[in-house]
């Protein structure tokens, strides 16, 4: 540790930037202390959550309260140990330090949730289950939940892949060929803006199975934004690029595959992102109405049996899946579009 950084550590950081610069130095003392303090507080919050589980008697009959408390204590101990261990744990500790304020907030929220439901029933009980009830779903109803996840993922993947491929091809064709545009554009304008869910009744009696009907609907919901954005991407490629490629001896197929498509990719990814969002909506509705499997169906079933903790458990899983899918899409985009500056970090 140089004299310079030692003297620097005496004063508190004057600005957020300076503070960040401080945090980059894992061994400097006050920061170790400040970030460690947030970590320690987070640990206390999680321990508090564990205590809140055990301190009072549960108002209902939940079998996982003790285990939940133990898990909370384990997490609290982990957070505290990592905060104190600091530099020796490297990147993991650094990541935890960055997230310490969030961990603290989460610990407090869980404590509040536990007290407000299981202990004092400030929130009406069957509708707002405590954390341990949701844990109970994950431990006791896991097979059915997993089956639902698998069914949803399969349906979504199939429909999305078909829709994305069809949308991409249609978009490139409309953007490239005037005659394709002449015929497809009016159809696109007529059918595209219709919400895919409006096709539900039609799809369920036209297709041989509810599975194929849902695949069609998801593909439809995906294809529209992908088509429009791909098309606009191809159409907005600067003529200068084509001129350059043509003077260098490019064939028409080279112009499409190596100029139009790569230039349009940023737009295509916006379309894929929008398509993903609207296809999630169709997936859940299709599963609630027609398909006898999947998370949408699980939600519907849980609600029918007033199994509210199952409903929340499924919602949490669904949110993780959707967010994971978008993360995956953005990672793919970042990899393919490294040449782009200033893209949104998801």
């Amino acid at each position, binding site marked *: 540790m140089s004299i310079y950084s030692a003297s620097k550590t005496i004063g508190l950081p004057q600005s957020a930037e300076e503070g960040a610069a401080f945090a980059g130095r894992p061994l400097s003392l006050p920061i170790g202390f400040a970030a460690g303090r947030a970590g320690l507080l987070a640990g206390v919050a999680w321990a508090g959550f564990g205590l809140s589980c055990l301190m009072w008697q549960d108002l209902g009959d939940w079998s996982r309260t003790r285990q939940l408390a133990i898990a909370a204590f384990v997490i609290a101990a982990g957070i505290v140990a990592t905060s104190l261990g600091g530099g020796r744990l490297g990147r993991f500790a650094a990541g935890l330090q960055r997230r310490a304020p969030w961990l603290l907030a989460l610990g407090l929220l869980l404590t509040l949730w536990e007290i407000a439901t299981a202990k004092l029933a400030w929130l009406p009980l069957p509708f707002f289950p405590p954390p341990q009830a949701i844990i109970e779903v994950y431990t006791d109803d896991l097979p059915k939940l997993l089956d639902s996840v698998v069914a949803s993922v399969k349906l979504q993947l199939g429909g999305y892949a078909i829709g994305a491929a069809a949308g991409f091809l249609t978009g490139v064709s409309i953007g490239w060929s005037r005659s394709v545009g002449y015929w497809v554009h009016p159809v696109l304008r007529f059918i595209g803006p219709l919400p895919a869910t409006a096709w539900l009744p039609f799809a369920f009696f036209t297709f041989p199975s509810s599975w194929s009907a849902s695949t069609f609907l998801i593909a439809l919901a995906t294809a529209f934004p992908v088509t429009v954005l791909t098309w606009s991407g191809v159409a907005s490629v*600067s003529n200068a690029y084509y*001129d*350059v*490629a043509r*003077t*260098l*001896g490019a064939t028409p197929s080279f112009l499409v595959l190596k100029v139009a498509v*790569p*230039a349009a990719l940023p737009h295509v990814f916006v379309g894929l992102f929008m398509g993903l969002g609207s296809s999630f909506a169709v997936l859940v509705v299709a599963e609630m109405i027609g398909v006898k499997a999947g998370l949408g169906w699980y939600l519907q079933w849980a609600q029918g049996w007033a199994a509210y903790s199952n409903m929340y458990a499924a919602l949490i899983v669904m949110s993780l899946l959707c967010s994971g899918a978008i993360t995956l899409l953005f990672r793919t985009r970042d990899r393919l579009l490294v040449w*782009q500056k200033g893209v949104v970090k998801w």
Partner: protein
Amino acid sequence: MVALAAAEPVAPAPAGASLHVEAVSHAFDIDGTVLPVLEDVSFAVKPGEFVALLGPSGCGKSTLLRLVAGLDPPRSGTLRENGQPITGPFPSRVVVFQDPTLFPWRNVWDNVALGLEAQGVLKRQRHRVDAAIDLVGLSAFRKAYPHQLSGGMAQRVALARALVNDPSMLILDEPLGKLDSLTRITMQAEIASLWQRSGFTTLLVTHDVEEAVFLANRVIVFSDRPARIKADIAVDRPYPRHRGDARLAELRRNILGLLGLDVTW
């Protein structure tokens, strides 16, 4: 210089192409009105010659270059390369535009490789890409993306992308127009020495009189739109030239006079 002289017989320079522009006229349709841009333009360029096309901004010089490149067909008249009519773009005639127009999704190497890739010969001739990048002095930036390059570097990449095709005619459409004056001076000298070494015919559109007389064998001066040839001036000075050359200064004054801009000289 010794090394260059020794290298020349080993690697024969590609012969420059001749160009014949015969009674070419061209016009644009803008909202139904016909706007003539070129009127009965005729001139010939000998193989290996460096000809500058000079004229006021927007007079139609760049349009003429597009016709020579084969990007657009003329309304009337004929253009011939080595006696053959020009009917479309061909990689023996490559263009360097005012904007580098590098493909932002390709790094420097892949941008330079574009022509060879489009012609389907890249797999066998990867060394030519490396050589072209070395030629413009950007070996250290092979993997860089266009957004990481300065304006001058990007234009060098565009030059390498053209030269990699061993053109018999290099068409330069104000390639240095947007560069700062120091970079421009450096690159003018580089273009002159590249042209001398390789022997391709060069056609340069510019509105910089000094650049025209410094680089070219001949300066063709165009009138305001629709462009007609006003004068065809031989620059009878040997290379390498010096900017302070009294004869070049005199020519510059004459040409500015033709353009009606000699008052401040």
